[in-house]
């Protein structure tokens, strides 16, 4: 442990040890300094100048600097709220607002926009003395894709999105162009997002302080389905939504509110509510089977998980030569939608193939793109009709006037809502691999795995983006690697390409920490502890559930018995597996351009 030292913030003595910067120490002392560009999981950037503080060193030296970029030093005296710091912040806000499309009321970020918040806090009422952004200066809005909307007229150039793209995904789809006041953030060569190799993870949008990057809002389309009496609308809810949506309603991160979500969806008017955790279990059945088969044949190893659509798209666009490694399993969203399309009309009265509409609630912006894949389309219809992110569902609940916290908890609709602990931990990085191992062990040995907690695969913070676990399956060693962020994934790919990789399975989640920190989740970018709390919520549910192995799920067993026969069967392949496309070959039809 490093030594405890002290410094003074606004007259208060604060202890610090290994805080990465002064801003964190100031927060620890209980003071808030505003910032647009500081994000704990990204490199310090120091561009917005909102977090400026006055500092006096023990030797008498005084300076004014951004606290997010300063190392905390023992004995310094920090003042966060002086005439000078307030004046700088005010000027920064005024300058930004003058150069901003201030149509706040119709902005998707309204109410969650940091620029709006600080402008209000700092009492900015008049910016007319500065050069105004006029309509003729407006640049076109990029809504070329089904996932993310980019409005350059609301960009304050804090660079958070550029860093997120580079540092999380190693991808640099977004970058800076031009100089001085003509500087812009834009996709490569000024192309629309749909025309570059964006994977639509949405992390850029998750760190954006303003309405410059937002999720493509499909709330109205969902309402249209629900209010149409000729349509039967069913929902599915992804694992990580349940431990995050509560934050929008004042609950703690990690608090499991699946039963409240079920109730809210029913209240909104969904006819049936299912759980993607069920199809997570189904995924494990197929993927564990596939894994065991590949290991026994020694083919296409390491196996890559295929749950994360951003990862799938990354491979398709960057490494199409590696597509044979990808599991042919559809993602849990894809599996459940195709199962529901097939079986809901059989199991539930009043539902037909024609009147059935499927809305999935996902933590993820890339799922919106996944749902539009040509391979996930049957008889002229996409398996999933609408993908709503956690954020959008929260908006829907609010607009329906529902008091979320006082709803009567209710269960999902049988038989596609029963799930095991293995299904629920899909939402955290490492969960898929852990769930797969729990079942694969039994497939290989015929005996249930006794110790179900594979701790080495867990952890969602910055230090746990690459985890290697070696397992002993009755004498044979199996190595599993778990990575989150595509930047880490790329390193593993390079290891495979240069022959140094020794793992048999690679789980990849594009978002840092996995789906609990997905691009569609409630805002969590200014506190890196939030994702740890959400993950803890999932692992807690895992231990509380009756079944913790996917193959123990009674409804899954029933489904195989009544319909799918066995994992890897012809029927299972027809419904639950898919194919991938090489961007560089003629067959690649870019879904986002349709």
């Amino acid at each position: 442990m490093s030594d405890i030292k002290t410094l003074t913030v606004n007259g208060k003595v604060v202890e610090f040890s290994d805080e990465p910067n002064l801003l964190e120490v100031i927060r620890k002392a209980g003071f808030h300094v505003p910032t647009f560009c500081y994000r704990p999981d990204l490199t310090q950037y120091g561009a917005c100048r909102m977090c400026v503080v006055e500092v006096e060193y023990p030797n008498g030296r005084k300076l004014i600097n951004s606290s997010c970029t300063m190392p905390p030093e023992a004995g310094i005296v920090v003042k966060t709220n002086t005439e000078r710091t307030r004046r700088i912040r005010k000027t920064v806000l005024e300058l930004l607002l003058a150069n901003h499309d201030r149509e706040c009321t119709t902005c998707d970020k309204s109410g969650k926009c940091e620029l709006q918040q600080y402008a209000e806090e700092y009492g900015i009422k008049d910016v007319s003395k500065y050069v105004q952004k006029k309509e003729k200066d407006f640049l076109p809005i990029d809504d070329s894709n089904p996932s993310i909307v980019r409005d350059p007229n609301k960009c304050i150039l804090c660079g958070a999105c550029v860093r997120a793209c580079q540092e999380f995904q190693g991808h640099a789809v977004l970058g800076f162009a031009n100089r001085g006041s003509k500087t812009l953030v834009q996709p490569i060569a000024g192309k629309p997002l749909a025309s570059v190799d964006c994977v639509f993870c949405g992390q850029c949008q998750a760190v954006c302080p303003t309405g410059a990057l937002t999720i493509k809002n499909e709330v109205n389309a969902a309402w249209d389905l629900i209010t149409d009496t000729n349509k039967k609308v069913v929902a599915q809810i992804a694992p990580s939504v349940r431990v995050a949506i509560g934050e929008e309603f004042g609950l703690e991160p990690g608090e499991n509110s699946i039963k409240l979500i079920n109730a809210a969806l029913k209240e909104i008017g969904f006819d049936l509510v299912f759980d993607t955790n069920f199809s997570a279990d189904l995924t494990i059945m197929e993927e564990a089977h596939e894994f065991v088969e590949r290991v026994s044949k020694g083919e296409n190893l390491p196996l890559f998980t295929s749950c994360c659509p951003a990862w799938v798209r990354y491979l398709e666009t960057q490494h199409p030569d590696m597509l044979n490694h990808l599991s042919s399993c559809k993602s849990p969203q894809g599996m459940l939608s195709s199962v529901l399309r097939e079986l809901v009309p059989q199991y539930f009265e009043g539902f037909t193939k024609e009147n059935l509409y499927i809305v999935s609630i996902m933590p993820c912006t890339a799922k919106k793109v996944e749902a539009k894949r040509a391979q996930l389309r049957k008889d002229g219809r996409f398996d999933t009709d609408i993908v709503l992110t956690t954020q959008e569902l929260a908006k829907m609940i609010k607009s329906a006037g529902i008091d979320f916290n006082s709803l009567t908890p209710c269960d999902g609709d049988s038989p596609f809502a029963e799930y095991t602990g293995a299904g629920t931990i899909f939402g955290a990085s490492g969960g898929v691999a852990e769930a797969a191992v729990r079942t694969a062990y039994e497939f290989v040995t015929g005996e249930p795995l006794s110790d179900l907690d594979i701790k080495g695969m867990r952890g969602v913070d910055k230090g746990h983006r690459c985890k290697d676990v070696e397992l002993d399956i009755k004498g044979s060693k199996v190595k599993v690697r778990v990575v989150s962020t595509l930047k880490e994934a790329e390193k593993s790919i390079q290891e495979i390409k240069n022959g140094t990789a020794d793992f048999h399975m690679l789980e990849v989640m594009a978002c840092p920490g996995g789906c609990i920190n997905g691009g569609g989740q409630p805002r969590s970018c200014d506190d890196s502890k939030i994702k740890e709390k959400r993950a803890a919520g999932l692992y807690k549910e895992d231990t509380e559930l009756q079944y913790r192995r996917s193959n123990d799920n009674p409804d899954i067993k029933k489904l195989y018995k009544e319909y799918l026969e066995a994992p890897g069967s012809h029927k299972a392949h027809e419904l639950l597996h898919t194919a991938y496309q090489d961007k560089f070959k003629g067959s690649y039809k870019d879904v986002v351009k349709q």
Partner: protein
Amino acid sequence: MTTTLIDIKKEQEKVKEQIKAQGLRVLVCAGTGCVANGSLKVIEKFKELGANVRPMTHQDKVTIVPTGCHGFCEQGVLVVIPDLDITYVRVKPEDVEEIVESHIKEGKPVERLLYVDPKTNEHVFKNEDINFYAKQTRTTLANCGEINAESLDEALATGAYEALHKVLEQGNPDAVIEEITKSGLRGRGGGGFPTGLKWKFTAANRGGKSYVVCNGDEGDPGAFMDRSVMEGDPHKLLEGMAIAGYAIGADEAYIYVRAEYPLAIHRLRVAIAEAEKRGYLGKNIMGSDFNFEIHIKEGAGAFVCGEETALIASIEGERGMPRPKPPFPANKGLFGRPTLINNVETLANVSTIILKGADWFSSMGTEKSKGTKTFALTGEVNNTGLIEVPMGTTLREIVFDIGGGIRGGKKFKAVQIGGPSGGCLTEEHLDLPMDYDNLIAAGAMVGSGGLVVMNEDTCIVEVARFFMNFTQNESCGKCVPCREGTKNMLKILERIVKGKGEMKDIETLEELATAVKDGSLCGLGKTAPNPVLSTLKYFKDEYIAHIKDKRCPAGVCEAMKVITIDAELCKGCTKCARTCPVGAIEGTVRNPHHIDQSKCIKCGACFNACPFKAIKQN
């Protein structure tokens, strides 16, 4: 140490002999300025006509030496013939024959090509009598103009690599840092940070990989000090870098040069290649176990890359945007490694300090600013060019003695010192000893040493607008105060020079200037308001004249020109009315005409058309 160093004295003797054998050396400036004036043709002509001539000096032959910048660019092409210590100015290829016939063959100077003193109007025979040179102390630039910059031998003859040899012989890197610290050398790139201290901080991280970076991204408008050093005496820079590398424990270095300096890049490349080939750089330098490799990185034309962290980002292949400090490059610089980054002129001072000693260096200058400083003297002075003076020289000496006073007998108004980051100094500062601290106190800065002299015909608001336009264009766009603040300051200044300013604009300007200065991320932003702040401080009345009276006191700002017709002088010839392109002039034949100010576009056509000088411009 098992290695043995070469005998540098012996090498020097050898090359001195060679140079002696060159006979009479005719030094023709081949710096960028003179090349632009046609010096390459002059050199060609000299080679053609002078090659087989036996000079009056009874030397065996004549050698034409293309040199680096002599500094007196105003008068280029410059030709120096050392036998009579004579400088010929404005030499054209057609003058060469006369120089060869008269001067070289017969020892008679060609009087018409001599420099004319603007004060006495007489020809100056001796170099030392040319005021431009007389008041200078050339140490950094000592060899610029004396040697062929593309010849290692010539550099060696002037003592190049002797200092490096000395430190390698002594084998004590800390002693090198001590000597530099003792000399009082401060960063010549503008900030004036004590060089020895910077070396010490970087040396504290000895052990792993570290780098020396030379900042040659000289971007201030009108500044060319660093270019001249790189072009005129590249080995002095390379030696300084190697000594720095030895002191801090680095074996690799980069010179970041503007791509707009092709000649400097070429000469540096030639110098590096030759020095590496002959063992003065590269592996086992001069027989020691010290290795030092120097790379050249060409800049891509961004002013901000002169800021050290942006420069580092640019070398790394990233967009040239400054990074917050701390961490300072001394701890985490190029490729994340400890990096010593110094400006060209700073590094060019190093070898002389090592050879002549810290005491020699600190005997020049003021209490806190030691040594000499080069300035690029431009603007409305008679003698523009590159100069080097001891720190503490007054502005008066520079402008009126070295510079030969204001061109055309006009009145001195101000100098802009330190480029777009600097400030304006006025008449009241003429006797201020120029050093780092005095200039900061006066609201300007040494900067890299650009010195633009302005006369009474200069509009000071327009000057502020010019520099603000420059910084706004060159702002990297990263931090809000600089990106948005300079944009708004520029808009206000544009308004004022267009006669559309309001009194509250001055208040907004001041407000913005303070916020940009306090709030910006890097040096570019922090100093960007200086031109505005210093002109507001010393010339507020001019701002007010523009705003309240809609009048430009210097008569520069187009928009505020008022053209009127003097009714007394107007004969009603109608010429003006017929010439006016917008029909702004009304009047009938033989009656005085009148200009409708709301229509007038101030093109001045009427002014030229009037045969009676009846049209007046304010």
